[in-house]
């Protein structure tokens, strides 16, 4: 899932670029009473971030140094986080703190005995400032190992305001409303959606939003753990709903076949490019990065966002992802490492990166006014407001063979489904067959 990692990086790069104003002074406002208790300690921190994300994360590290006196050195692991961490541990030289994205990886690390439990100070701070769902995402077997520091919102529909204006429509608030709006847009001569179906993960994200809102968080969790089969009536219902969009030539530019020939960047370009071929595209907050960096459009004026609408009277879904800090067992500066994670759990650290842009914090205590623009603030607010109903991307939690591999598993099955949305039961049966195989292994 390299794309998913690089896209947020791009997003960060761009949001920063457009809002690069007052970020220089952010970290240096540490209070004079800073104790410098950790002076002389040299903490090592590793994450997948590079480029702008790395720069901004380093601002957070500097703020920590200012506060405690400990110096922090950062290593970017690239995409192979597990491999890098594993070899460091085997070599007897583990980093102190590692930023991990998927809950599955936290579990994998914990099962291998690589992780130290977070200190009570950290878990208390998490309890105070975070919705319970974030703590449980970092918890394995009753012990909390991971603290989610950064969040991503993948329940965002991006639209071209000019197309909406031409058609005389407003951002919809329910899924039925969305379909109606889409038809009106199509009547006005602009197909409603561009769907980047050539990449399977855009389709899994579509499904997850519909399913989370329609079936509710409990069933979502069960399906995530494959405790209910993909042939469950709730899945059939969600696929049917999805088929209403993908089966309608008016709603999707080029219909299902057109979607399958469209890759993700093209789908964004179809909405925000020189000659818009569609009015809306659904994908996560990182779409903003593509819009600003590649298409040189202004977020908030040329491109706007509305939350993924509620389906069938359910609650509007808030689905996303995040990055969590874990402390490695055998860390040379275990105490400083725990202090660092405690620092990340507070609003201060999050505010440093938030001001720089391209960052949303799942921390309730972070003042929404620190975000540099309304769009980012909107994302942060919906993640905080979702509270315990926030759900982590389902396909990211599934075995890679099912939820994360091009041309097979869920990606392929959903692609086959949008090519022929009439066969809902057949699609569900195929999904179940592939899921059964992948979850067994």
């Amino acid at each position, binding site marked *: 899932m390299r794309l998913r990692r690089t896209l947020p990086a791009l997003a960060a790069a761009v949001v920063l670029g457009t809002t690069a104003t007052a970020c220089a002074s952010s970290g240096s406002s540490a209070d004079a009473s800073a104790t410098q208790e950790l002076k002389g300690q040299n903490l090592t921190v590793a994450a997948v971030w590079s480029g702008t994300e790395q720069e901004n994360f380093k601002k957070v590290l500097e703020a920590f140094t200012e506060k405690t006196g400990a110096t922090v050195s950062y290593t970017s692991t690239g995409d192979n986080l597990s491999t890098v961490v594993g070899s460091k541990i085997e070599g007897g030289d583990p980093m102190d703190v590692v930023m991990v994205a998927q809950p599955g990886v936290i579990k994998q690390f914990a099962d291998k005995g690589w992780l130290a439990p977070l200190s009570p100070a950290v878990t208390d701070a998490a309890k105070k400032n975070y919705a319970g769902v974030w703590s449980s995402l970092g918890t394995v077997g009753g012990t909390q190992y991971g603290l989610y520091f950064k969040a991503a919102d993948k329940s965002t529909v991006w639209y071209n305001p000019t197309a909406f204006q031409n058609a*005389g429509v407003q951002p919809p608030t329910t899924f039925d409303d969305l379909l109606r709006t889409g038809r009106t847009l*199509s009547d*006005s001569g602009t197909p409603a959606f561009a769907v980047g179906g050539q990449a*399977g993960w855009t389709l899994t994200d579509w499904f997850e939003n519909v399913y989370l809102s329609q079936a509710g968080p409990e069933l979502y969790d069960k399906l995530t753990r494959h405790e209910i089969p993909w042939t469950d009536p709730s899945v059939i219902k969600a696929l049917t709903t999805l088929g209403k969009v993908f089966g309608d030539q008016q709603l999707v530019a080029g219909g299902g076949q057109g979607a399958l020939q469209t890759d993700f960047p093209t789908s964004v370009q179809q909405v925000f490019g020189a000659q818009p071929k569609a009015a809306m595209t659904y994908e996560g907050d990182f779409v903003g990065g593509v819009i600003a960096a590649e298409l040189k459009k202004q977020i908030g004026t040329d491109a706007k966002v509305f939350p993924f609408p509620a389906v069938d009277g359910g609650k509007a879904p808030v689905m996303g992802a995040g990055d969590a800090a874990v402390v490695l067992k055998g860390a040379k500066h275990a105490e400083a490492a725990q202090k660092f994670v405690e620092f990340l759990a507070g609003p201060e650290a999050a505010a440093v990166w938030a001001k720089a842009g391209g960052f949303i914090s799942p921390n309730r205590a972070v003042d929404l006014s620190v975000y540099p623009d309304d769009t980012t603030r909107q994302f942060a607010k919906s993640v905080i407001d979702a509270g315990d109903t926030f759900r982590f991307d389902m396909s990211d939690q599934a075995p*890679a063979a099912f939820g994360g*591999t091009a*041309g097979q598993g869920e990606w*392929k099955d959903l692609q086959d489904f949008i090519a022929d949305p009439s066969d809902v039961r057949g699609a569900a049966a195929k999904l179940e067959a592939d899921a059964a195989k992948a979850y067994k292994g």
Partner: protein
Amino acid sequence: MSLRSPRRGQASGGALRRHRGLALLLVLPALLLLGALVVYPIGYSVARSLFDASGHRFVGLDNYGAAFTDHATLTAARNNAIWVAVAPALVTAVGLVFAVLTEKVRWATAFKLLVFMPMAISFLAAGIIFRTVYDADPHRGVLNAAAVAVHDTFDDQPSYPGARPRPGVGLDRVGSGDVTAPAATHVVLLPLVGVQPDTLPAGARTARRPDAGDGVSGTVFLDFVPGGGGHPGQLGPGKQGLPGIEVQLRDGGRTIATTTTADDGTFRFAAAPSATTTLVLPAADFAAPYRGVDWLGPALVTPAIIGAYIWIWAGFAMVIIAGGLANLPRETIEAARIDGAGEWQIFRRITVPQLAPVLGVVFITMVINVMKIFDLVYIIAPGPVQQDAGVLALRLYLVSFGGGNDQGLGSALSVLLLLLVVPVMLLNVRRFRGSRA
């Protein structure tokens, strides 16, 4: 061989032992290398194929069972069969044609260089090139750009691509795409939607109701006001007429009259309205623009990739065959020519049979090469059709490392692939023996 001769063995056992030791010593490095790089991996793969994904649990032949029941693997095997049946023969044939033709042209070297050039490009780059060549979007894929250009030369562009009748106002769209409405009243309104207002012809004016008269008249108009508003199906401010649309008046299946809409969308027929006549807007005016061929769709993806493969390897085949051609005895050809044989006869009866050994070498090389085809398929086939285009080597990789992480099944596939290649290898070795004797 002298070492095997028993008499000399008895005569000087010490010398023999020394000989053997020396021979072994000389062969040892090669043996070690072969053992480490060929024998050991094969043995390890065979052993690994008997264990499950984690590598800890012995599962016997389960992985082979899984390989033969897995839908994707069976597709891959089928595609491999297509590849072996089609690609080597085509590469050899194209190479042969090029080789024979270059003998006759003046700029043979330049031509050969050109055809051979793709060999100098890495498979990855070639794959990326052809991914773009086959792209469905005519603005990117050169093949579809050509297809669309040719299509549009012979076929008129629709004036309002994508337009369709406003639903729920009594207009029908029949299977052929024609828009129909009963011509039972004096005035018939034909509201259409799905056209971007800024794409209308410059002459288009606000739609109006046609003047009253005896015959059937009406208005074809864009039933959408920019910014929304207005009543669907009715004329009103902001609604533009659609000029230049063909309107037919039909009685049953017979076309009585044909006319074209004016700048304000109005049209008029002299015939009186009746219950049996209908107004028809032929589909040609609304057809979605021709988008070319879906080269990388499930149906055509394998032939498309084989095309890219031929582009790369035809040059190689040509050079080898041209080499063989240069060594052919000329006398037979000249004799045939004196006997009055035509060029085609000479090619079929003299050149090809004499070239058979060279053609065989090229063909067998290509068969082995095609069996392990991987990179082109991996790069050219887009995600949604990757399984449809899959081949065994690609499946092997995906199963082992590309998300499946089941190296047990992957090893089983590699063993199967080896078993498939072995007969061809044996054939090749036999041929080498034969040619030496």
